[in-house]
């Protein structure tokens, strides 16, 4: 039997880019179902997504990326999906890499496959800010120290998650910059985590959730959250 694949697209005020993104996803992975998590957008994100025939789950108010992604996992759990792929609604994640991202999970090699923009030393690779690159390196080291994982891009939201983690992420998913903490949780739950190289694009519209001023809060919050996770017991 073919595995049930759900592509979730968390989106907040992405009316300008969401339609084109959905069309691209449909071309890349026609066999997958698609749900747009409209995270309390104040523009026409929901309507624009619906025009393309996509299913839209609208949150009545903005929960932030963590709450939106958790909603996607809850839907995946409710509907008994085998794999969930997160593709951010801002168009930064190139849907052309969805199939390679899915492969290790579908083959049973990984439970969480992260699309890394730093695995390939390519000049075309998306360039992030210096502060952000420093943050990414810091979390690579921290996660490496605590879990033994050798990652290059733990902050990437472009990821495929297998059935082993769907229920756990539906029950609890970190809020505010959740990606590195989600990796730590996955390791605590005994999941196999790995990366594949992807290219990321410049944001097509909207605003990034991480700005310069937020970097400090981001570093402190995520570090603390990861350290506290080491004190948690497995369910």
């Amino acid at each position, binding site marked *: 039997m073919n595995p049930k694949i759900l592509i979730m697209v968390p989106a907040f005020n992405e009316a300008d880019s969401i339609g084109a993104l959905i069309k691209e996803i449909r071309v890349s992975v026609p066999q997958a179902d698609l*749900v747009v*998590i*409209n995270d*309390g957008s104040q523009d026409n994100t929901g309507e624009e997504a619906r025009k393309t025939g996509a*299913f*839209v*789950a*609208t*949150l*009545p*108010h903005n*929960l932030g990326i963590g*709450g939106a992604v*958790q*909603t996607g996992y*809850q*839907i995946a759990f*409710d509907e008994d999906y085998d794999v969930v792929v997160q593709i951010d609604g801002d168009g930064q994640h190139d849907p052309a890499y969805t199939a390679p991202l899915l492969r290790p999970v579908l083959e049973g090699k990984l439970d969480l496959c992260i699309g890394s923009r730093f695995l390939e030393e390519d000049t075309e690779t998306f360039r992030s800010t210096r502060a952000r690159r420093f943050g990414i390196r810091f979390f690579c080291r921290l996660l490496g120290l605590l879990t033994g994982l050798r990652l290059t891009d733990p902050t990437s939201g472009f990821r495929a998650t297998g059935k082993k983690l769907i229920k756990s992420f539906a029950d609890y998913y970190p*809020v505010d910059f959740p990606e590195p903490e989600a990796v730590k949780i996955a390791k605590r739950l005994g999941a196999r985590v790995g990366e594949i190289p992807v290219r990321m694009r410049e944001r097509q519209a909207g605003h990034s959730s991480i700005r310069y001023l937020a970097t400090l809060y981001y570093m402190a919050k995520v570090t603390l959250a990861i350290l506290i996770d080491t004190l948690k017991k497995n369910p």
Partner: protein
Amino acid sequence: MHPKTFALIITFSVLILVIDLIRRQKMTFKYALAWLASSIAVIFFTLQDTWLRTVAQWAGFALPSNFIFFLLLIFVIFFSLLLTIHINEQNSRAESLAQAIARLDYRLRKMEGKESDEKR
């Protein structure tokens, strides 16, 4: 005015205000309990100030007024902590409700989609 009278007026005002808020259903008994208990404790210690001196001395405070400030600080810290927990609870409840609405929205639209497909 005698400090004792001043303390009693303030404390009785707080007590009456809290009771009135409960009566008008602006505050539930659960959250009023800490205010009621502390108001009654202050009234008790104001009327029985020899007891206040004894307890303050036993706790190692040279001046009873310092002991009162200390108690006040403890009360404020403890109550702030309780309120933080409460805000967090409300926050996660609001989040769960929002997610439940989004999940229902998804299901409803999926069912509507299936229905319109069947009609065709």
